[in-house]
């Protein structure tokens, strides 16, 4: 499986913790604030696709999430409640059979697309098949689990046999090959936002299918600009908990220079700096001082860490791994991220069920590290003086993270040398078994708010000859057993096993398999025109345009 939401960042990242914001929520576009009007957004990175079944970045999801609604979706709220799955176009969350392999839902009655065409249960099957046909980058989440989806993908069948629909009753049944607790999260992917049967099964670039959400995409000039306007049919559908939206129109312009992008928002020439972009460090002090009432750094559920290959010296020695965890100076890394990093030591980030509330085992998360103690541990481990190659990306601030880390390893008694390669080839290179990296940079931004999405990175089953994402080749029977035991837990019942996930995560931290240093923060930055408090930064899809309103 692959990481879904690869937030495309253009440089370094942001600081300051997120605080709860007044969520727009509810089904209304009513309430306080101005209704209607137009906002302008400048984004530094163009969406990979606007096609609802093909986008795979936050820039694409921001537009598609409010234009195409899946059967289930997430609350349009900030973290932590933004992680809650709610019914979308289905009447309720799926009913799951006792064996965990059959998911049943019913489509709401009276739903129509933005062109007035009725939404049918069979549109879900068509949407899923289209998602596979256009070759969405995350389709394996679906094909690995749904019966017959792989055969359909390989052209061995005309339809996905595991999906049955009844247009008369609106009933949708999905059969899985094996229980997969996070499947409700899979159903909430925006790529399963409904489009009508008959939508061309190739990438759409300018003319999008009719909308099934509060907004619809229009005036698309690829890689230059596009707009979303209100779906005139949506409000009458009365879909609870999905906002109808306040603004009539949002115009999006791609502005590749983030300095200019930020300057425009600072000067109120544009209304929003895209949360998927990175504020240039040089402008951060100006933004913090001049726009403190319309700027905030929001922590997103993500884990930034250095992996350590437990099959190679020196990190096949637990004391050596502990030494690095003892020495790490997380506030230093926070400064390298221009403050846009929330220090942390656990693999499960805050906001994910199971995130430990206990103390870090090797010193406080905001401590500066204990070099002397680390040197002792290295001496004790008998690995002092060994050569280490530290892998990293040629991209700020990740380059700086790795240079810091290499220097740290040298300080505690190793001979470390950074090896920096292009960010486009970095993960395939370190994920190739021939490379056998000793240690280096890694990160994970949640695909969906489920601990299993993170722990697959430390599962023995994830160790592959190519595209390996378990970079440290961690193979621990306890972790594997716990994943096998907890993975089938349905998303809606995650709270019931949170303490067990917490125990796993505390065990991982104690074994020092990785050196976690924190979670990334993204900028929430608006012009003076927008009501800052009501605007939601969703933990998975970032800016929720349907919650924006003019002051």
């Amino acid at each position: 499986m692959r990481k879904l939401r690869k937030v495309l960042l253009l440089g370094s990242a942001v600081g300051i913790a997120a605080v709860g914001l007044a969520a727009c929520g509810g089904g209304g576009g009513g309430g306080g604030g101005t209704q209607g009007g137009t906002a302008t957004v400048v984004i530094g990175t163009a969406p990979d696709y606007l096609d609802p079944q093909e986008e795979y970045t936050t820039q694409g999801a921001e537009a598609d999430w409010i234009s195409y609604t899946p059967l289930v979706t997430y609350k349009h709220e900030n973290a932590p409640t933004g992680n809650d799955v709610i019914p979308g176009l289905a009447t309720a969350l799926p009913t799951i059979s006792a064996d965990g392999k059959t998911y049943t839902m019913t489509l709401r009655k009276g739903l129509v697309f933005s062109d007035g065409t009725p939404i049918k249960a069979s549109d879900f099957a068509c949407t899923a098949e289209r998602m596979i046909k256009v070759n969405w980058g995350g389709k394996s989440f679906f094909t690995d689990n749904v019966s017959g989806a792989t055969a359909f993908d390989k052209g061995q069948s005309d339809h996905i046999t595991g999906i049955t629909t009844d247009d008369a009753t609106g009933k949708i049944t999905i059969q899985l090959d094996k229980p997969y607790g996070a499947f409700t999260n899979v159903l909430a992917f925006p790529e399963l936002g409904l489009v009508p049967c008959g939508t061309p099964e190739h990438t759409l670039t300018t003319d999008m299918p009719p909308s099934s959400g509060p907004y619809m995409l229009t005036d698309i000039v690829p890689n230059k600009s596009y707009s979303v306007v209100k779906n005139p049919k949506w409000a009458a559908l009365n879909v609870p908990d999905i906002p109808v939206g306040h603004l009539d129109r949002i115009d999006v312009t791609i502005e590749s220079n983030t300095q200019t992008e930020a300057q425009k928002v600072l000067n109120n020439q544009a209304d929003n700096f895209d949360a998927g972009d990175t504020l240039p460090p040089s402008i951060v002090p100006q933004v913090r001082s001049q726009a403190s009432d319309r700027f905030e750094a929001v922590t997103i559920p993500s884990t930034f860490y250095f992996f350590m290959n437990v099959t190679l010296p020196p990190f096949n020695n637990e004391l050596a791994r502990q030494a690095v965890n003892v020495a790490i100076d997380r506030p230093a890394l926070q400064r390298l991220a221009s403050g846009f990093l929330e220090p942390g030591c656990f693999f499960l980030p805050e906001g994910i069920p199971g995130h430990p509330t206990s103390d870090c085992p090797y010193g406080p998360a905001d401590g500066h590290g204990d070099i002397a103690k680390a040197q002792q541990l290295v001496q004790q481990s008998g690995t002092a003086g060994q050569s280490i190659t530290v892998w990293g990306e040629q991209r700020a601030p990740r380059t700086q993270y790795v240079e810091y880390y290499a220097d740290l390893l040298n300080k505690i008694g190793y001979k470390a040398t950074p090896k920096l390669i292009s960010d486009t080839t970095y993960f395939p290179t370190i994920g190739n078994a021939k490379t056998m990296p000793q240690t280096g940079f890694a990160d994970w931004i949640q695909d969906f708010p489920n601990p299993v999405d993170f722990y697959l990175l430390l599962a023995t089953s994830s160790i592959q000859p190519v595209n390996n994402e378990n970079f440290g080749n961690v193979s621990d029977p306890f972790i594997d057993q716990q994943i096998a035991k907890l993975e089938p837990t349905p998303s809606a019942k995650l709270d019931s096993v949170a303490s067990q996930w917490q125990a796993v995560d505390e065990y991982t931290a104690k074994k020092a398999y990785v050196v976690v240093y924190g979670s990334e923060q993204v900028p929430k930055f608006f012009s003076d025109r927008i009501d800052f408090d009501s605007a939601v930064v969703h933990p998975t899809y970032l800016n929720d345009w349907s919650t924006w309103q003019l002051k």
Partner: protein
Amino acid sequence: MAVDPTAPSPGKPAALEPSFGLGEGVIEGQAGVGPYQLAMRRLRRNKTALAFGAMFVIIVLMCLCAPLYAKHVAHTTPSANHITDTVKVRGETKDVVSVGGIPIGPTWTSHFLLGADSNGRDVAVRLLYGGRNSLEIGFIATFISCLLATVIALTAGYYRGVLDGVLSRTMDLIWAYPVILLGIALGTALAVGGLNFGLFTINGTSLWIPAIIIGVVYVPYMAKPLRGQVLSLREKEFVEAARSQGAGNLRIMSREILPNIASSIIVFIPLMIANAILLEAALSFLGAGVQPPNPSWGTMIGDGIRLIPSAMHLTLIPGGMLVLAVLGINVFGDGVRDALDPRAQVRMEH
């Protein structure tokens, strides 16, 4: 066999050969003075060239003293991070790197004299070490270029025919490829896997990698004009005379032709050093030259570019040093060329 009295004598530079400039000495009528002595006299009269040459030498000496400065003055190393450290500046305690990630500017004290970079490393220390690396690469690359270009020029120009065709077309091929692109392609590829010569391997982070790349890509710029000179020289009477006396090809190339192209090679050297330093800076700026943790002026400029509005010193200081070093060697090189080759036949072409 009739011998042209104006032809250069075997084994000596073409003192009487006007086309290579050294004959100017004869024109000035200072019989008994060798061509190199004449060139030195001309160079000594060129005060501007000498001043800039002296500036370059001072920069080289400063860079050579980098370890002394780091150990005894700055008390740090070029790769030591001081991100969360503080420093006292005129009685006031300041963060080396602020909480927002902005590094301290020049303190004009022994610690962080020229400020720090985003990793809290001492810019002055890195500047000197970076200079060592940049200059080392410049000198090694120039040596490689000169050696290869001379061998290729002598071989192609002397033997002509198929060998000349193959070598010349190879040079054309390299020449036709934009230097920066070729350097990036080679630098990026070799930074990961290093360079394997069978008997020995060069690590991807070694300074030899950019030095070899730059040395190789600049070979045609020197080999082509030298080959032209060899083609002309091989037809001269003194070569004929040597051949008639039974001298072999290797002897003619090394004893007769090489001394007569030596002045051109000497003229090329400072110009090649300047160009090699510039190319190294460009490649390092783009991430395809010097690899961390080694600093170079190019990597320092690259590291500082994202902080230009708030920490301009990170780009201005290494940039200024680069300008001074290249200016110094270039103006001095022009002086050498004027002294050795007053008709200025030798030019670096791009």
